[in-house]
């Protein structure tokens, strides 16, 4: 029983919690599950400092839900001390490896409840939901080469030709190189910045509400996936394959093929991947291709993944990192 081993127990990892209120919120969501009833709970806390009263209220909450706090681990001395005062087994951990408590359960954090609990416990750690908001730095631009022309089934030759010429002209007018930082600053200086973001938010919400196709396999060369809505792929998308969606495309793996998001004209559609190496990216009617210098037929598989997202800005496809590594 000394190595943090609990019989008939539940290991609940809340080591990422920065506030007592957060611990309570998440614990209550987890313990609410029917199979958590009557189990002993091994509570993994991170660096969070809890005094005796705070820990007591956590314990009381767990007990009120029909479970029992069997053991507490923490890297904070204060928390461990208060645990031993309350007669709970303790285990000291040195480096905290954050893991998700339950893969299939995402505890819904009630904002109001959290604020109310904050008032009670008086923690003043800043809200973590804002943590990842300011790191969406644009990284690179793939120069759009030409637009895709939507030709009708029975198009007249002349009209189509005119249309193509127009598109080619337009494509030529777009500057080849574009400084994203300057655009960023321009947007910030713009007075109507609130309106733009509101509009984008609205569109993102619309995309969010589309049906989503969920696929859990590797897409290989020659395979094509089309969906009216969003597509989520758990696996790699190999070169030579294509994904076409009216909404967003998310690849939990390496994107090496062709991805066409917002194929019915949704310019707010996005393409996300753990590793971006697409032959072509298309959003609505804008096309970007891989630079010739990086013309490697297959991506080298690595352990380091940098999740990236492609969005359209000013009629150009821009890739930015989702998280800083």
């Amino acid at each position: 029983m000394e190595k943090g081993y609990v019989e008939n127990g539940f290991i609940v990892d809340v080591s990422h919690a920065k506030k007592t209120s957060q611990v309570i919120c998440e614990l209550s969501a987890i313990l609410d599950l029917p199979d958590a009833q009557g189990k002993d709970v091994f509570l993994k806390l991170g660096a969070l400092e809890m005094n005796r009263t705070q820990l007591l209220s956590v314990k009381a909450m767990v007990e009120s839900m029909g479970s029992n706090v069997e053991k507490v681990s923490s890297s904070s001395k204060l928390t461990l001390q208060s645990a031993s005062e309350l007669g709970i087994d303790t285990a000291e951990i040195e480096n905290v490896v954050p893991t998700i408590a339950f893969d299939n359960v995402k505890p819904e954090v009630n904002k109001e409840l959290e604020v109310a609990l904050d008032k009670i416990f008086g923690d003043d750690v800043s809200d973590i939901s804002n943590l990842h908001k300011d790191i969406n730095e644009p990284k690179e631009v793939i120069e759009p080469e030409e637009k895709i022309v939507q030709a009708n089934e029975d198009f007249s030759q002349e009209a189509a030709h005119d249309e193509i010429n127009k598109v080619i002209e337009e494509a030529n007018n777009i500057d080849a190189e574009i400084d994203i930082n300057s655009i960023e600053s321009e947007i910030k200086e713009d007075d109507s910045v609130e309106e733009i973001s509101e509009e984008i938010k609205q569109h993102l919400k619309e995309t969010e509400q589309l049906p989503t196709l969920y696929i859990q396999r590797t897409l290989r060369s020659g395979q094509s996936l089309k969906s009216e809505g969003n597509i989520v792929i758990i696996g790699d998308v190999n070169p030579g394959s294509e994904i076409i969606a009216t909404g967003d495309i998310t690849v939990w793996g390496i994107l090496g093929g062709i991805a066409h998001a917002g194929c019915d004209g949704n310019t707010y559609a996005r393409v996300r991947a753990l590793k971006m190496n697409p032959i072509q990216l298309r959003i609505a009617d804008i096309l970007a291709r891989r630079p010739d210098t990086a013309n490697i037929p297959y991506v080298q598989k690595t352990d380091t993944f940098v999740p990236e997202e492609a969005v359209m800005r000013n009629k150009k496809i821009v890739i930015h990192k989702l998280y800083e590594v």
Partner: protein
Amino acid sequence: MSGRVIVITSGKGGVGKTTTNANIGTALAKAGKKVVMIDTDLGLRNLDLLLGLENRIVYTIVDVVEKRCKLKQALVKDKKNPNLCLLAAAQTRDKTAVTEEQLKDICERLQKDFDFILVDCPAGIEQGFQNAVAGASEAIVVTTPEMSAIRDADRIIGLLEAKEEIKSYHLLLNRVRPKLIKSNDMMSVDEVVDILSAELIGIIPEDTGIITSTNKGEPIVNDEKSLAGQAYMNVAKRIMGEEVPFLNLEEDNSFMGKVKSFFSHLVGKEKK
């Protein structure tokens, strides 16, 4: 202007049809001819990779056939040579997406604007082969000095002879290894020509540079030092009607080779 439609075929897979196509096409374009290459290997396209044009393909031959775009839109221009164009195959479809008549029609339309139309044929003798051959009037049969490849080439030549549209065909012997021929481990060029009784248009030596050029997406004819590149250049010249002697692959041109041959002269013909 009426361009020549040449199909490059082999029967057997992996003998170098696509590599030959990419290199002859590039060589012809370098000589100032207007060239278009058609990849008819639907579902297993490779020609775009060899030319390094994979990232530029928007429309494919299937889009042209199904009238989603105009023929000119689907032609992908080469990175370096504006005389060279590629009509790519669709990767997500199979051979049934295009019919013989449609391919014939495409070839006829391209003949007006191009000097050479090179059709890259898929392996096998099924629908894909029939499609590729449909619009062509000349053929280049690629083979290697191996029994299996020669047997398949023989079958292909038989099929080509039965086609009225094919006016002439030539043989291209690929991956020849002079050392192995010398040591009697590989069939010699003459033997192959004897078996197939077809006119030879080129002998391409085995070259490791082909592997790197394929991976880079850069045809080997762009490398003037490479022996295989020179051989492909000569094939292009012969296609254009020039008389070019075949490269002497037997001769070892390096200094060590000359020293060796000098000594072997002194020792006499003991090896043979």
